[in-house]
């Protein structure tokens, strides 16, 4: 047994923080994808994560499907939920203001939470870790293999998104929609289709976050709100609308939370991240990587 020094303890907090921060970053990315195309803050984003975890439990544990099938199946199913959210809650609203649409997403999130409670009950569910739970020792700190999966998936998602938005014509069309909707429809881009796509994409990322975090922290029906708040905080912290900002914001939130819980008290773990968020808003309201110019132009 190695001696636990203060340094290894700090390393341990850092690793845990980066892991949970990766999840926040994924939630923040989900927020931003929809926000950039529509200016809507989708408060049902946390519900996508919850659904990802819970649906995966059904497919993988209850139905016994192997991981490689259950994983994509879950993502596709949650994507469908995202598409339904757009078709049933967002698109039918006549003469929508951004605020009305945001309230619609809050309603949808309450509804989804209720349905999840009816289906899965109030108990938390566990999921097998992808490659076992034998901890890996790293300079005295203990790393669960699942942590590596989480961080790895964040990297994978980041690379895929950057390829999608920078190098495919559909990704460019989506960015064009966010940039200037009038000009986008002028070159033949169907903005409604792009909004639908943004919801599907966000849902998929939420589902992935839910699937990979469940083996670490379990999953229950009402976790969506706190995940949404942390993810939203991460997006604001990084500068709402900026992809690198969302990732950085998420990692910072997670790390602060982990250090705060470890060094001060875990009872206030939610407060630390939010205090930092408030401080950023006081001193640099556009966020770490957001530009002041852009934040002035935004309606929300």
């Amino acid at each position: 047994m190695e001696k636990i020094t203060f340094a290894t303890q700090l390393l341990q907090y850092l690793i845990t923080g980066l892991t949970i921060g990766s999840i926040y970053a994924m939630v923040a990315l989900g927020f931003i994808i929809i926000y950039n195309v529509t200016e809507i803050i989708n408060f049902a984003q946390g519900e996508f994560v919850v659904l990802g975890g819970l649906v995966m439990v059904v497919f993988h544990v209850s139905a016994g499907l192997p991981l490689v099938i259950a994983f994509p199946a879950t993502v596709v199913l949650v994507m469908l939920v995202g598409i339904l959210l757009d078709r049933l809650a967002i698109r039918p609203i006549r003469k929508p203001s951004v605020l009305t649409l945001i309230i619609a997403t809050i309603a949808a999130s309450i509804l989804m939470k209720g349905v999840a409670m009816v289906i899965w009950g109030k108990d938390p569910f566990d999921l097998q870790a992808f490659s076992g739970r034998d901890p890996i020792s790293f300079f005295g700190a203990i790393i669960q293999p699942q942590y590596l999966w989480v961080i790895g998936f964040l990297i994978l998602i980041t690379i895929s998104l950057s390829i999608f938005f920078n190098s495919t014509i559909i990704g460019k069309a989506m960015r064009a929609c966010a940039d200037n909707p009038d000009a986008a429809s002028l070159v033949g881009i169907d903005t409604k289709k792009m909004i639908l796509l943004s919801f599907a994409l966000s849902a998929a990322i939420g589902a992935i976050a839910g699937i990979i975090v469940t083996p670490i922290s379990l999953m229950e029906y009402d976790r969506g709100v706190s995940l949404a708040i942390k993810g939203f905080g991460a997006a604001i912290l990084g500068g709402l609308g900026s992809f690198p900002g969302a990732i950085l914001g998420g990692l910072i939130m997670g790390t602060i939370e982990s250090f705060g819980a470890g060094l001060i008290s875990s009872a206030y773990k939610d407060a630390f991240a939010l205090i930092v968020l408030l401080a950023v808003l006081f001193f640099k309201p556009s966020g770490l990587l957001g530009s002041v110019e852009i934040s002035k132009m935004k309606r929300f």
Partner: protein
Amino acid sequence: MVQELKFQVRESLEKNILEVEQVAMAFGGLMALINQNFRVKKGIIKAIIGPNGAGKTTLFNVITGFFPPTEGTIRFKGQAIEHLKAHDIASRGLSRTFQTVELFDNMTVLENVMVGCHTRIRSSFLATGFKLPQVKRKENKIKEKAMDILEFINLKDKFNEPADSLPLGEQKLLEIGRGLATQPDLLCLDEPVAGLNETETQVASSLIRLIREKGITVLLVEHDMKVVMDLSDEIMVLNYGEKIAEGPPEQVQNDPKVIEAYLGGED
């Protein structure tokens, strides 16, 4: 009689790319356009002129589907389009630019034109999502096409610069280039030389002429009379939402109604 009518219809189809019939547009009680009837012949440059507030931009917005007209029919290549959405009309080959430049500011010059090519590639999301080599090939093809267009509008050297860093004159050219990328049959230009200096105006004018030579019909709203008289094959004059004259430049220039409403006062 019927035969004659049919013949007329066919003939008009062959000759006219755009037919506007009985179109009216009201904003609340304000009639922005009153009983508009006109045709745009294939392959020409037609200018719409008129004093400020005459309804020129409104007419563009109605034709390109940004507002549905209160009344009337608009036929493009023989098909009614007045009920279609802007993106649908654009993908049928009717493109436009805006009075105030509307580019994708956060994208590069090249990307702006590439997005313009979007309409001409019909690919499903799943196909682009999972077949990377194919995506790459398609992407390269689009890039080549976009570079050709940049060469045509003389912006090839600046392909990698952010669109909002260009001077106004080049932003206007880029907007035309993006319009061309949709491979239009009819290109509507809303004040293409407004705010440009003498040299930039000449560049834009000769570009518009080149576009006509490529067989693309051009419909033009412009205040610069020199450019209008110089470029247009046909001119239509609006005043208070109504057409007051239409014809070749010399004829319109000498029309007493036009002189009274528009050219009057000053000279």
